[in-house]
């Protein structure tokens, strides 16, 4: 059940070697945790974090995908009891036929329930539904002493619950969770599309109050254009469709969930295929294939939400050197910073094809949860020389504006920069250290950013 292997994040940078164990039960998890060696232990789900939070050089990594019994869903209440290793894809496929929807879905469904808590993931509906932690009624966590504790958001161990939400697996191993699902009449979205000339027009659309009339909202914007076209964007917003909004054909099977995987990319792509020229061409094409203004289109989840889930191992397109995803947020009122960052990227040698901007709603009470009221931006850079220094410059703009970086995407910053963005880090650290005084839970990220001692 154990073997030695090399692990990296989804960005394929900085691999390290660990002993990998695949437990099948919560008791097995507890046994492996209590037997962890001096280099400690960390849980890993489907490896969709971009950097190094789910790897542990020289230590033990728990492959949680072995702990994945079929979800138990109460069809009347929408309460789901799910193992930590179950993917949101599996949960969604189990819930939909019963008329229930997973309330928070990130850009991919290929993440585990445990990982979704650990990173407190968000989706395009953050401004209306918050992040994943907001929908958890209870969770079972194996702590450093090997005990299995049931935590609830406002029970006796609420403090540890909120330390675990967004805690990147450093408080314990999430073996089971109880999630409140959301009612839905269909598996389709009613979608409105707006194409904007520039970043300013986009920000205007997002702040004129119209955003609150949609459950889901996010924009793709262009970072290869400068001047008058700076940050031109395609904004897509929508809500789950009700039965009366569907066509008669769709109405016959409204909960049909059709998410094929078209193809899996082979590991043959050279470095440098994703370069400034190809990314500019991609951006030009993407922008111009979208309608200027479109209302009431009915789309399924892959079309509206998770386009990249159509492809397996799409990260291979970036070649063996991999890529870096940079996601940050700046508070409302810092729109000038957003514009400066877009200008910086457009003027730099580093190009990004996939850029997403989203307006966040209120955050939750977890000290390390990423979302806060403000703007979040995600960009994908192919690894090239000078990129780390460029990202350090972006850090400075983001942090100066009172913003922060998202740990699920993070692979390169410093501990000091991380802490600048998370003023409640010490509070988190105190609870974490109290439940794990020996530092059993540790990851490459924890060592790199000094999250644990």
């Amino acid at each position, binding site marked *: 059940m154990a073997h*030695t292997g*090399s692990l990296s994040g989804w*960005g394929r*940078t*900085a*691999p*390290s*070697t*660990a002993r990998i164990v695949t437990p099948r039960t919560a008791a097995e998890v507890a046994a492996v945790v209590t037997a962890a060696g001096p*280099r400690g232990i960390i849980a890993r789900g489907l490896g969709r974090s971009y950097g190094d939070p789910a790897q*542990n*050089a*020289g*230590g033990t990594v728990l492959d949680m995908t072995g702990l994945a019994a079929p979800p138990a869903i109460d069809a009347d209440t929408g309460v789901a009891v799910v193992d930590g290793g179950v993917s949101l894809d599996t949960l969604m496929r189990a819930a939909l036929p019963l008329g229930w929807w997973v309330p928070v879905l990130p850009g991919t469904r290929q993440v585990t329930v445990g990982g979704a808590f650990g990173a407190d993931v968000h989706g395009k509906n953050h401004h209306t539904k918050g992040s994943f932690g907001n929908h958890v009624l209870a969770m079972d966590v194996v702590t450093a002493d090997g005990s299995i504790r049931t935590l609830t958001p406002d029970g006796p161990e609420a403090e540890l619950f909120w330390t675990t939400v967004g805690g990147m697996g450093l408080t314990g191993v999430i073996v089971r969770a109880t999630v409140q699902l959301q009612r839905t009449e269909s598996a389709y979205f009613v979608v409105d599309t707006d194409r904007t000339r520039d970043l300013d027009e986009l920000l205007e659309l997002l702040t004129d109050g119209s955003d609150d009339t949609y459950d889901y909202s996010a924009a793709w914007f262009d970072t290869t254009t400068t001047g008058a076209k700076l940050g031109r964007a395609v904004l897509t917003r929508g809500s789950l469709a009700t039965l009366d909004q569907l066509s008669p054909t769709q109405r016959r099977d409204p909960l049909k969930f059709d998410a094929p995987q078209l193809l899996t990319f082979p590991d043959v792509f050279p470095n440098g295929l994703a370069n400034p020229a190809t990314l500019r061409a991609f951006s030009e094409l993407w922008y111009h294939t979208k309608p200027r203004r479109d209302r009431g289109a009915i789309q399924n989840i892959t079309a509206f939400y998770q386009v990249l889930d159509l492809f397996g191992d799409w990260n291979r397109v970036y070649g063996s*050197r*991999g890529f*870096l995803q940079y996601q940050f947020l700046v508070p409302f009122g810092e729109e000038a910073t957003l514009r400066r960052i877009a200008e910086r990227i457009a003027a730099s040698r580093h190009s990004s094809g996939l850029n997403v901007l989203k307006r966040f709603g209120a955050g939750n009470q977890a000290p390390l949860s990423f979302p806060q009221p403000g703007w979040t931006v995600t960009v994908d850079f192919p*690894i090239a*020389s000078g*990129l*780390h*220094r460029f990202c*350090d410059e972006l850090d400075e703009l983001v942090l100066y504006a009172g913003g922060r970086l998202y740990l699920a995407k993070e*692979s*390169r910053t*410093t501990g000091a920069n991380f802490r600048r963005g998370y003023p409640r880090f010490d509070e988190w650290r105190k609870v974490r250290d109290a439940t794990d005084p020996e530092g059993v839970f540790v990851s*490459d990220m924890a*060592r*790199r950013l000094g999250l644990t001692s």
Partner: protein
Amino acid sequence: MGNPQSVLLLGGTSEIGLAVVEAFANDRPMRVVLAGRPSARLDEAKVRVEKLGCAVETVDFDARALDTHADVIRKAFAGGDVDVAIVAFGLLGDAEKAWTEVDAAVELATVNYTAAVAVGVGLGERMREQGHGAIVAMSSVAGERPRRSNFVYGSTKAGLDAFYTGLTEALRPDGVGVTVVRPGFVHSRMTEGHTPAPFSTTPEAVAAVVVDAVRNRQEQVWAPKPLRAVMSVLRHLPRPVFRRLPG
């Protein structure tokens, strides 16, 4: 993404070694351990690296004192994981004395080869434990084909080269990378007064090659890069021809 946070330089006053440390530190300040003989030069090196914003500590290290090496490595890793360890100490020595006087020959062999092997064993052990890291070993093109003019030096580098090339394979399953670097003639304190060979280079140019190699996990590099082709030809020349080449 290949940004080391901590670097150990064995041969703390080595010009090439310090140039590599500076090249990494230019991107971002790091924790640096300089292992060398206590001296004014080592103190100067510490100040130089600290100016780049690095936290620097020094560890006493004498390549000749083989029985202290295990302790040196232990101390060097006491402050936490080491992301990159650079084996950069070495002597050029007096080439004629080196093959006519036994003490000179043994000293060269001890410092350049035996000590490099001793620290290599220690580094390998520590890096296997931490499950990640990179080792950079400074070899030389002089080790690729012995020449009349400096073959004792060449023989020590040939030995070092073979050891670290093998270590590359031995450590690969543990996720530890090894880069063997073969510079040509480098203008430095070590080669002062020697006539430069063709394709001569500088410590900074070698450092740029090393930083790239570590980032791209290359296992064998020449500095400057064209030397790879040059040496490939030289290795295959018949002896009567090779003997007549200048230098």
